[in-house]
């Protein structure tokens, strides 16, 4: 068997990658929604005779229904990162419902990790909620933040309280740009606190849906006073890792 498939069923999006001879043959991404299984099954029909590894929040669902192996997104992310950037030892994966900081050795094996707990603060979902408060999609929201020349400090990290705070800032006459940037700064501060706990290895990668956010990326680089690499397709790294792990079974 030389076809290997990785499925990353996340809280917001699902990514599927097929690799043949360690090269990506096919990749797709779709919104997870409330019933992702039919779509996953449909996609899988195109990969006959493939070894499948499921990862992400829905890994148990996928493995129970399509007979796939299962690994956590933490292990898969490290493998994917190592494949793309072999010199990288630390990766920040900002997903829809959690953010993870993963440390790996020179073989891409996880040696330690940090992950936020139940609360949505510091996750992609937080910014999506806030964008909704301004009736914007996330892209527009990021552009709004990037257009700001100054920002207001948002003290609350709780999604619900932050929304109340934002509403009172709007009514006090603050511009949407200042508030949007303020929300990005508060997320960056929270992520920085998680990263700052541990001495950083030289090569540091930012992946997941959050890595597509140019404003957040710039703020993090500023706070860490260093460049932070991003892969071309930051959302596909975990699925890639899962496919690579499939090739080792």
């Amino acid at each position, binding site marked *: 068997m030389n076809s290997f498939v990785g499925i990353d069923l996340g809280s917001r999006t699902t990514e599927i990658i097929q690799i043949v001879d360690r090269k990506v043959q096919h990749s797709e991404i779709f919104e997870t929604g409330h019933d992702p299984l039919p779509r996953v099954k449909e996609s899988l029909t195109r990969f006959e005779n493939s070894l499948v590894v499921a990862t992400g*929040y829905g890994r148990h669902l996928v493995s129970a229904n399509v007979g796939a192996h299962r*690994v*956590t*997104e*933490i*292990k898969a992310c490290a493998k994917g990162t190592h494949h793309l950037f072999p010199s990288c030892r630390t990766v920040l994966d900002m997903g829809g*419902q*959690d953010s993870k900081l993963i440390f790996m050795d020179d073989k891409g*094996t*996880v*040696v*330690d*990790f940090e*992950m*936020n*707990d*139940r609360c949505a603060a510091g996750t992609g979902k937080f910014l999506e909620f806030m964008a909704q408060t301004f009736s914007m999609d996330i892209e527009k929201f990021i552009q709004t933040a990037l257009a700001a020349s100054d920002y207001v400090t948002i003290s609350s990290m709780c999604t619900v309280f932050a929304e109340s705070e934002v509403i009172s800032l709007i009514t006090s006459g603050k511009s949407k740009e200042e508030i949007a940037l303020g929300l990005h700064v508060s997320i960056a501060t929270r992520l920085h606190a998680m990263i700052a706990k541990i001495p950083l290895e030289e090569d540091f990668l930012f992946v997941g849906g959050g890595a597509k956010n140019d404003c957040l990326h710039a703020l993090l680089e500023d706070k860490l006073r260093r460049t932070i690499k991003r892969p071309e397709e930051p959302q596909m790294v975990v699925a890639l890792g899962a496919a690579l792990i499939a090739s080792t079974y």
Partner: protein
Amino acid sequence: MDNFRKMWTELGMDLELHDQLIQDMSSLHKKTHLSQQNRPKTMDRFDRSFHSSHSGRVAEILEFRKNGGKMIGTFCIFVPDEIALAAGVLPLPLCGGSGWAVSYADKLFPRDICPLIRSTFGMALSKTCPYASLEDFAVGETTCDAKKKTWDLLGMKVMEVPQRRNEADRNLWLEEVYRFKGMVEELSGITVTADGLLETIKLVNQKRSALQQIDEFRKLDAPPISGLDALLVAQVSMNQDIHAFIKDTQALIEELQERVDKGISAYSEQGKKILLAGSPSPMGYAKVHHIVENSGLQIVADESCTGLRYFRDLVNEDLNDLDEMMKAVADRYFGIDCACFSPNSERIENIQKLIKDYNVKGVVQSILQYCHTYNVEAKIVEKSLKKIGIPSIKIVTDYSQEDIGQIRTRIEAFAELLMD
């Protein structure tokens, strides 16, 4: 069941809410304990004791009280059972482990205190705790700030647990143990005698020895009992009649020995051995144990108050007079390595010893939200583990089910880290 409904009504309970509580506890028990493969058959008895904690056991205590018996509620393993028993008083731990009950505490308690206190008094406030009207009084202790103020709020009796290990603290604790003896003697009208106390010291030691024997099996390469079931046994030990409990454990120990002889493990797969450390898991709560053991890991030791901290040390039995006995009891309890002590290096040493004795490969620190002492001490534990190359992970959570997905991801990733 109809008899019990009558009993619950007479105890002034809210039957409708109580049905909800029981349903919630039973369905969780089914999902966690009963879904395990390869359980010892004798665990049936402990399942029954778990289920009868609000029915048959309550009826027993009602009968005991009808005959003049006295019962006190306790909330901590610092309250010395043998002294209450020697005065003819039944001490019953009443810590709540039900997530269902937590929100009912809102009437009286802030939201940002630990789920253990909120669950306990959520049951009392929702009239779903059958013991609330059965106890003659409750004895609190000073192991954390939220508890201390809870006792004030409810006007309860309090034993002062010192927080340092100096001579003055030891003396203070001995005085408190004497004062506790006075409390229970006054309640029952029975004076504690040397003969009586020696008898209850031996009885409670016997219960601890039984729990220790069960734990010994968990040191084996293929443990015949799961960590989840060992937790259930410990939880039941705090509620069931002590004689009946000792009897049930003897049956369990026999079966565990048979399983060892036949090479039957509680686990269907090989898995890394884990020490569970941190906050207690009162009856009804087994969330972290369940997730850990469903991630290919084996909890072979549990150092919490619902594990070894409860039964690791016996009271010295080589004693001549009542004062010697009182001192021996006080000394035994003063050795409890609770995180309320500053410093608490004894706990770090005990954990290091457990790792060797149980051949542990990783540590899961299970911390109840707002349990500041164990939560902050977790860093000291983590540092001490790093020094000897033992990986650890800290899970801070409560009795709710909403964070199970994230906890599962973290625990499974921890399991992968241990395997790779």
